[in-house]
């Protein structure tokens, strides 16, 4: 039997269903890989013993069912998992064990999957390289000391290294799509409101969304279907029917129109990325798609807007980490001292920077110039997309302005790190669904991705287009497990 950890999610589900192999065998295969992969530092918490118990129990079932029957899945450590430590990559939560399960992970378990472990990520999902985690950097399987992207770096790296058949992450400014692009995997951010945020450690409430990271588009459709759905416990959850994304997946995309936004052709764009973009355009044309040039005039304001709105919301969302109810607590002679020491010791530098910026842009005298202004610009950005979608069905752009960079390369200048998100951030601001699919390699043999952006709740459309692209791109993730 060939190495089960190479199989796609869809094939694993099928194989377990048809009793070609057992859940236990599948689980053991991934655990075996993980046991020699500590160098990648993808896991914060391994739940291997419990996973094996779950696998054995699944195999005992006479009538196993569920979209993900018998599948072990490792998830980003931003999802609260009952009785399993949940840290958000931070010292301030490094001993926190939730007594509750997030809605999204609960959905996975009710479809027959079970927890393999909690994956490393940038602290509180703030970062684009997984270099801000309290638990150390994550390495990209594509090369030692190469970043996997962030903040879902652990998820992307573990997935690419066959340590988990699929994963789920969170995307606030590109944190699923960018690491997917850097690791040659598929990453999708659903429409805002498609998946519940209940039980996910909050970073920026109006931007956060949970989403799948998978090896293939087919896998992505399946996992998205399992994760999605209205949750009355989340007031920003939208009560809209969950399509059978999987069964409705098709390559028939003829006569759809794809927009190519001119503002995404940024200055100093590496030629490889431009070439890849053109390749994507050609492949889509080949599939019968009509290509149109479009304009999203406020694109250049998206990053500054994001870096006002997200830190502002984060500064408020992270106020609850005060050492009183849970998490790390430092000593203090009085309450205020306790707070200041706890938060100073408990938060890393990037988180501190964002909390301070967020506090600043909301503070008296600055609110109008920054936060209020950003919300106005956000409206303009959203309207750009709304107008564009009157003329096109989807938008094609590169996922990232470069391939994965070296660790430490961008640590000295926070703004240079932020520029990684230039193509992904506008999507979060507009609340749209978007997917990154691996499309090629740069001259350093590092993967590059292309991004498809769709209308609200039209994940099916971008999945279909991605399927058409995937077949034509024929991307192969050739990784030698150098880290074992």
């Amino acid at each position, binding site marked *: 039997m060939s190495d089960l950890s190479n199989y796609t999610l869809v094939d694993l589900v099928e194989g377990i269903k048809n009793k070609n192999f057992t859940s236990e065998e599948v689980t053991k295969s991934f655990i075996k890989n993980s046991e020699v992969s500590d160098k990648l530092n993808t896991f914060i918490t391994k739940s291997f013993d419990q996973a094996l118990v779950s696998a054995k129990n699944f195999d005992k079932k006479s009538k196993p069912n569920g979209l993900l029957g018998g599948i072990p899945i490792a998830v980003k450590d931003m999802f609260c998992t009952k009785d399993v430590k949940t840290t958000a990559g931070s010292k301030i939560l490094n001993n926190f064990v939730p007594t509750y399960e997030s809605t999204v992970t609960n959905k996975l378990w009710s479809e027959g999957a079970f927890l393999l472990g909690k994956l490393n990520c940038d602290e509180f999902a703030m970062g684009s390289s997984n270099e801000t985690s309290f638990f150390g950097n994550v390495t990209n399987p594509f090369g030692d000391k190469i970043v996997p992207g962030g903040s879902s770096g652990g998820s992307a790296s573990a997935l690419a290294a066959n340590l988990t058949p699929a994963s789920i992450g969170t995307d606030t400014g590109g944190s699923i799509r960018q690491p997917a692009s850097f690791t040659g995997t598929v990453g999708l951010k659903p429409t805002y409101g498609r998946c519940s945020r209940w039980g996910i450690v909050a970073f920026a409430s109006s931007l956060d969304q949970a989403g799948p990271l998978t090896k293939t588009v087919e896998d992505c459709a399946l996992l998205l279907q399992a994760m999605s759905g209205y949750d009355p416990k989340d007031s920003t959850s939208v009560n809209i029917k969950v399509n059978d994304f999987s069964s409705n997946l098709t390559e028939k995309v003829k006569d759809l129109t794809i927009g190519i936004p001119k503002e995404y052709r940024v200055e100093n764009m590496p030629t490889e990325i431009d070439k890849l973009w053109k390749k994507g355009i050609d492949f889509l044309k080949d599939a019968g798609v009509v290509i149109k040039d479009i304009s999203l005039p406020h694109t250049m304001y998206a990053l500054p807007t994001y870096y006002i709105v997200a830190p502002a919301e984060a500064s408020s969302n992270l106020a609850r980490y005060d050492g009183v109810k*849970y998490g790390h607590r430092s000593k203090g002679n009085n309450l205020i001292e306790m707070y200041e020491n706890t938060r100073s010791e408990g938060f890393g530098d990037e988180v501190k920077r964002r909390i301070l910026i967020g506090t600043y842009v909301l503070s008296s005298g600055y609110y109008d110039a920054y936060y209020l*202004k950003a919300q106005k610009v956000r409206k303009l950005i959203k309207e750009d997309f709304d107008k564009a979608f009157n003329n096109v069905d989807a938008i094609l752009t590169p996922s990232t302005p470069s391939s994965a960079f070296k660790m430490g390369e961008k640590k000295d200048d926070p703004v240079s790190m932020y520029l990684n998100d230039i193509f992904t951030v506008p999507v979060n601001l507009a609340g749209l669904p978007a997917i990154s699919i691996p499309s090629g390699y740069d001259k350093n043999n590092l993967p590059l991705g292309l991004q498809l952006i769709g209308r609200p709740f039209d994940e099916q459309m971008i999945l279909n287009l991605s399927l058409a692209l995937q077949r034509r791109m024929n991307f192969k993730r050739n990784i030698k497990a150098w880290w074992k």
Partner: protein
Amino acid sequence: MSIDKETIKHISKLARISLDDKKIDNLSKDLSSIIKFIEKLSKLNTDDIKPLTSIIEASLKFRKDKILDGKIRDQILKNSPEKNEEFFVVPKVVE
């Protein structure tokens, strides 16, 4: 516009994060750089634009007035760094 040390001290007090002088120096540079970056928005005229009130085209959904929760003191206190059987315990506020 750059951000001076007094302002950083003030914000850090609001955010309840203690910073020593060295940290403040480092932050001053980083934060000034970020502020400069976000100030790009000032170039855009938004006088007639209404701010975004929600990403979702919907209004708040209501919940019925039923007692469905509570009576889980053990769970609530479980993760607290300092507690007794009934309360969270914290250092006193300086009056």
